[in-house]
C-alpha cells in the first residue's frame, strides 16, 4: 500500500515534467517557455552555476536572517501578550495592521530606512512576524483546560504556567506557523532584492528577464521553488515529531 501511495505521485510528476519537455521543444507556448533540458543545462554551465550559487547564498542569508528575526520577535511578542492580557487587544490589532501592509508598498520605505542591503531581510521578517505571532497565540490559548485548572489549583504563577506547560504545549502550533512562514520569508527576500539589492536570486530573476535570458530565468525560479519546498518539508517533519513527542495536550 505504501509503495502504491508513493508510485502515483511519482508517475504524475514524471508525466508533468515530460509534458514540459515536449511542450518546450515544440515551442507550443512560445519562445519564453523553454524545454526542461534547456533549463537544467543552466546548472551544468560553470559561470552561470557560479552566479546562481553566489546569489543563492545571498538570498538564503537574507531570508534566513529575516526568518529568524520574525520567528523570535513573533514568539516573544505573543508570549508577552499572553502574560499581560491587558496588552493583547492592542498587540493583535498592531499585528493585523502589519500584515495588511502589502510587502510591495513597504519596499521603498525600507530602502530609505534600512538601506538596500538590509531590505530583503527586513521584508522577509514582516510576514514571518505576523504568522508566528498568530500561531504562537493560538498555541498558547489552545491548551488543555483541565491542565490549566490543575496549574491554577496548584497556585502556579502566570510565568510558571507558561514555562512549564503552555510554551511546550504550543510548540507544534509554533512549528506549524514556521512551516508556512518559511515560504513567506523566501518571497519577502526575493521581492526585497528587486528594490536594488547588490546580489541575490531576486536580482538574477530581474536581470535575466530584462536581458531575455529565458533558461536562466526559469532555472532561478526553479531554485527558489525548491528552497521554499524543502523549508516547508523540513519544518513539517519537525512539526510532526513535536506533535508525537508532546502528545495530545498540544492541540
Amino acid at each position: 500500500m505504501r509503495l502504491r501511495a508513493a508510485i502515483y505521485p511519482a508517475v504524475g510528476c514524471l508525466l508533468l515534467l515530460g509534458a514540459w519537455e515536449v511542450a518546450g521543444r515544440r515551442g507550443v507556448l512560445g519562445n519564453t517557455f523553454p524545454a526542461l533540458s534547456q533549463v537544467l543545462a543552466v546548472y551544468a554551465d560553470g559561470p552561470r552555476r557560479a552566479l546562481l550559487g553566489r546569489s543563492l547564498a545571498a538570498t538564503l542569508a537574507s531570508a534566513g536572517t529575516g526568518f529568524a528575526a520574525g520567528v523570535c520577535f513573533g514568539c516573544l511578542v505573543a508570549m508577552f501578550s499572553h502574560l499581560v492580557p491587558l496588552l493583547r487587544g492592542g498587540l493583535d490589532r498592531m499585528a493585523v495592521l502589519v500584515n495588511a501592509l502589502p510587502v510591495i508598498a513597504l519596499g521603498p520605505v525600507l530602502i530609505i530606512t534600512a538601506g538596500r542591503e538590509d531590505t530583503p531581510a527586513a521584508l522577509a521578517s514582516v510576514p514571518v512576524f505576523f504568522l508566528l505571532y498568530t500561531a504562537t497565540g493560538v498555541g498558547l490559548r489552545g491548551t488543555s483546560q483541565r491542565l490549566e485548572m490543575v496549574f491554577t489549583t496548584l497556585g502556579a504563577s502566570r510565568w510558571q504556567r507558561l514555562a512549564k506547560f503552555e510554551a511546550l504545549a504550543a510548540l507544534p502550533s509554533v512549528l506549524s506557523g514556521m512551516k508556512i512562514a518559511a515560504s513567506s520569508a523566501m518571497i519577502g527576500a526575493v521581492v526585497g532584492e528587486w528594490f536594488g539589492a547588490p546580489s541575490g536570486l531576486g536580482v538574477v530573476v530581474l536581470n535575466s528577464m530584462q536581458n531575455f535570458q529565458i533558461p536562466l530565468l526559469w532555472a532561478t525560479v526553479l531554485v527558489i521553488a525548491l528552497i521554499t519546498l524543502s523549508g516547508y518539508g523540513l519544518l513539517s517533519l519537525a512539526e510532526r515529531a513535536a506533535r508525537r513527542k508532546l502528545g495530545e495536550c498540544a492541540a
Partner: protein
Amino acid sequence: MAALALVGVTRSFLRRSAAGRRESFTALGPLDLQIGDGEFVALIGASGCGKSTVLRLLAGLDEPTTGQVQINGQPPRNLQAQQALGIAFQEHALLPWRSVAGNLRLPFEVAGRAATDERIGELIALAGLKGFEHARPAELSGGMRQRVAIARALALQPKLLLLDEPFGALDAVTRRRMNFELERIWLESRPTTLLVTHSVEEAVLLADRILVLTQRPGRVRTDVRVPFARPRAAALMRSAEFHRLVDELTANLESG
C-alpha cells in the same frame, strides 16, 4: 468545626432564551453545606445538577454569584496560594511529555519546594506504579494514569482533596479496583475530600457521607451518613446493608 462551608451559595449563568434574548438562569443553589475536617464526602446527582460547579467553586476555579465559600475560614483562592488544594479530573490531565516521576515532581516545582527522590518514591509506591517511574502517560493504561493524577493531587499533602469523576472514563472492573485503591491511598493521610460521581455504588463504597443534589438548580436533597467501618473490603459489596443503602440512594436520585 467545619473545615469547609458553603453558605447560601448560588451560581447563575447567562444563556440565550428561545426568543433570542440573553437571560440569567440559576444552575446551583441556594446551597448550604458543611464538611468536617478529614471527612470524605461524595456528591451525587443527575447530569447538569451542578455537582462539578460545586467542586469548581471549592477549587477557586469559579466564583459564586451570591453567598460564600470558605475553607478553614478562608476563600479558596488563599488555599491555591498555600498549595493546600489537590484536584483530579475524569481525564487524567498529566503533562504528556513528562514521565510519571516528572509529573509527580510538578507540584513541588510550582510550590518551590524540594522534591526529594524519597518523597517521589513514596508517591510512586502509593500509586502502585513501582517500575513505571520513567514511563510517559501515553505508555500507561487509563487506570494507571488516574492513579498518577491522584498521587499528584496528594503530593503536597493538601488540606482539601477534590475528585471530579476520577474513574468515570474507566471500565467497570478497573473502576471497582480503583475504588479500593483510592480508599487505601486516602487512608494514608485522610485529607478532607469531596468526590463528585455518577456512581451510587462508588459513593457508598468510599464516602463517610453522601449528599444527593436535586435537579437544576442543584440543592442538597438528602444527606446520608455511611455507617460502614474502614477499610472496606470487597465482601461489603455483597452485604445486604450495602445493597439496601445503594437502592435507597438510587431511588432517591431517580425521584427527580
